[in-house]
């Protein structure tokens, strides 16, 4: 049956620091909740089975594949996406570093990488190259070969 007939679930969540009250189908993923209900399309759909990391968001300080998280699961939680990284003062150091190091070609994986990398640097400000590569292994990039992405994260971590 169409989703209009299914009883929806009410959730209260904070997204990029802003409170939202939402009514969503219980089966809707956090990814679809962000993209279709809230209207934040910066988080991308790549595979829908948790293998590419394009949908990476930060939930209560933990980076997750939002395609594998149900929308109702973030009730009462703090969600941070790529749209929340820049401030009125300017771009996040990671965003600046990605631009300066040309760490993107098509850019579809970039939001996922930025959120993932921020999740690392928030807790470990000076990771080694190996640690960065390990942390980012859940984010696939098909364009850059990773070289400049790693260099950008290193630049932002100094």
């Amino acid at each position, binding site marked *: *049956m*169409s*989703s*209009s*007939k299914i009883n929806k679930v009410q959730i209260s969540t904070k997204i990029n620091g802003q409170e939202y009250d939402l009514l969503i*189908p219980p*089966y809707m993923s956090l990814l*679809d909740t962000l*993209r279709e209900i809230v*209207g*934040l*399309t*910066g988080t*991308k*759909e*790549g*595979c*829908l*089975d948790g*293998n*590419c990391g*394009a949908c990476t968001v930060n939930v209560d300080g933990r980076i997750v594949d939002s395609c594998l998280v149900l929308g109702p699961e973030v009730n009462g939680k703090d969600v941070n*996406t*790529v*749209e929340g990284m*820049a401030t009125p003062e300017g*771009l996040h150091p990671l*965003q600046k570093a*990605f*631009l300066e*190091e*040309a760490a*993107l*070609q*098509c*850019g*579809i*994986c*970039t*939001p996922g990488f*930025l959120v993932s990398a921020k999740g690392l640097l928030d807790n470990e400000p000076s990771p080694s190259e190996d640690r*960065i*590569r*390990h942390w*980012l*292994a*859940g*984010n*696939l*990039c*098909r*364009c*850059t*070969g*990773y*070289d*400049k*992405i*790693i*260099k950008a994260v290193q630049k932002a971590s100094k």
Partner: protein
Amino acid sequence: MVATHENKNKYKVIGKSPIRHDGVDKVTGRATYGADIKVPGLIWGDVLRSPHPHARILSIDTSKAESMDGVFAVVTNKDFPNVEEKEVSTGEDVVNLKRDQANIMAYDKVHYKGHVIAGVAAIDRNTAQEAIKKIEVKYEVLKHISDVDSAMAKNAPIILESLIGDHLGENVPNTNVAKIFRHEFGDVEQAFKDSDCVIERTFTMSMIHQGYIEPHNATAVWGQDGKINLWASTQGSFGVRAQTSGMLGIPESKIKVNYVEIGGGFGGKTKVYLEPIAALLSKKSGGRPVKLVMDRSSVFEATGPAPGGKVRMKIGANKDGKITAAETDIMFESGGYPGSAVAAGSICVFACYNLTNSKITGYDILVNKPKSAAYRAPGSPQVSFAIESVIDEICEELSLDKLQFRIDNASKEGTRRGDGVKFIRIGLEECLEAVKSSDHWNSPLGEAPKGKARGRGLATGYWMNGGGKSTCDLMLNDDGKVTLNEGSADIGGTRTSISMQAAEVLGIPVEDFHPSVPDTDSIGFTGVTGGSRTTYATGLAAYNAAQKLVEELKNRLSTIWEADSDQINFSNGTFSFENESIHIQDLAGKLDPTGGPATSTASVNLDSAGNAFGAHICDLEVDLETGKTDVIRYTAVQDVGTAVYPQYCEGQIQGGVVQGLGWALNEEYFITEDGVMANKSYLDYRMPTSLDMPMIDAIMVEVPNPLHPFGVRGVGEVTLAPPLAAAALAIKEATGKRHFDLPVKPGRIIDLYKS
């Protein structure tokens, strides 16, 4: 790193790496990709796909889906108009519209698992997915074919019954071999007889996917005025317009393709899969906007992967280090319909070697797999793997230095390719010399830890590069900034590399340019972003438009200065005549009395002879117990003509290398006995991750292309050709065993090593 052969200091803008103009949008999540499009009243579509790799469709019953709550429309191939089954030119490509139409929605047979049979539009994505399940199809399952040998076997089931094969000029019905062609020069038979060493090997490779992270998507509105608005993830909006027009029988002038960013293509997003279906669903839904987003497993099973197949390679050489003859049979899987990259592969295969005796036979072979499309230097990676492997073996057999052999036999200006065409100025020799003097080549391999072994592989590769049609419009604003419109989808910073070329001419900083990619109604025809043509051809259009703008401004100044325009000089952004001078950005604010806004436009249709060469070095470590490989060092040397935008040029090279290493070491379509792809997810179609790769060094050699004012050659594709052999040959050195089958995965490494 750039090793330049020409004086780059003369350029003010070319050769720098400014922040790309669309960069801030792309790092903040603001950039709009196809799936991000929101149109008021949007509804969702989905498609029904065949579970069988080869079957006749006996009946399709859509009634239950049509009557489902929340469903607006159902389409089948009956909703498509009849088109002729013949090849037509779409302005930049050659297509067989009937076959392409059948490929995106089958009418009598399905040719591969995942072949689309029907489409549904519904109130939301979930409802569309549920409705699809209600469509009932009766199939007559047929025997399927999964490899080229089975396709060519006697009594093989025929996949495309209407196909008349062209076998060396003869028409042959009832065949799965769509085409056999040949290029032959000199006398290979005699040359082999006279050679000191002849080696012949047969190589196999699997179908491979481009792996772009963004799945295909399309949104369509079929308005009540008969006009169609499309948004699609594509490498070429004009290609989408042409193909949609052809398949739906609607004039191109009634179709507008709106630009959205694209999340990777590599050649795989040059054909349409969803756009005509979205349009028909919109029409049948009364003009509602319909969006379709492909799921990842369908991207693997049912779009346009690179062909697998077989390459037989025979090379002759003499003790003095000269290659004498080369012969090859290239058998590629075209998939469910004809048209693999075998023609391109046949042009590339011997391109790196100066040969007078050569024989190439190419086969385009149908199998029950998705119809193959382009993947970054299509055909070249497969054939490069074969020839570079045999060349390495010849060098070992004759105790010749493998780098020196390539230098001694390198193609140069005047050498003929395997199809007979002569090269103009090319940079292969310069690449090989750069390898010779590189730090990597002169560094020791290093000691492998206990239980592991190391090896170093060297391989070269070629891609011809494209030309074609592009348009660029310029508008000089009052404040001295320049609005630049060009029609090339921006997959890797081309808004900027194109703007840089206009900036170089105009003497205006590239930061003062506002480039955009308009819809197909708002910019002149521009060919696909592919074929390593964009910075070259659209850049040249920008260059020409800039030159025209300068002429226009001279005309304007001639009224202010009372001089003839041909007496006015222009250099470094400044116009001058006798004692007068003015900078272009100052003149911009003074144009009203001279005739108002200053604009220019230029279109090109370029002959193509960019010719890109690459030579790669791969150091690899093998675990002799598990077969796991680690790439420990990699250097890609490539002739880029002129690196207009070095950081992005380097990024293209690095990206292609890593795709190539994935192809070499792990990626494949694992086809079961049932003829279906078992590993149709990113988990099991194992592409390289950041943990699998080292830093990739790129040495950009610059031998300017004589056909472009800035020497631009085109860089995006050739980088995928050498890595397959470079990695396999490194494994050979490490393990002592040569591999002829791709991927050289851990199981194969151990089996061969221990045998």
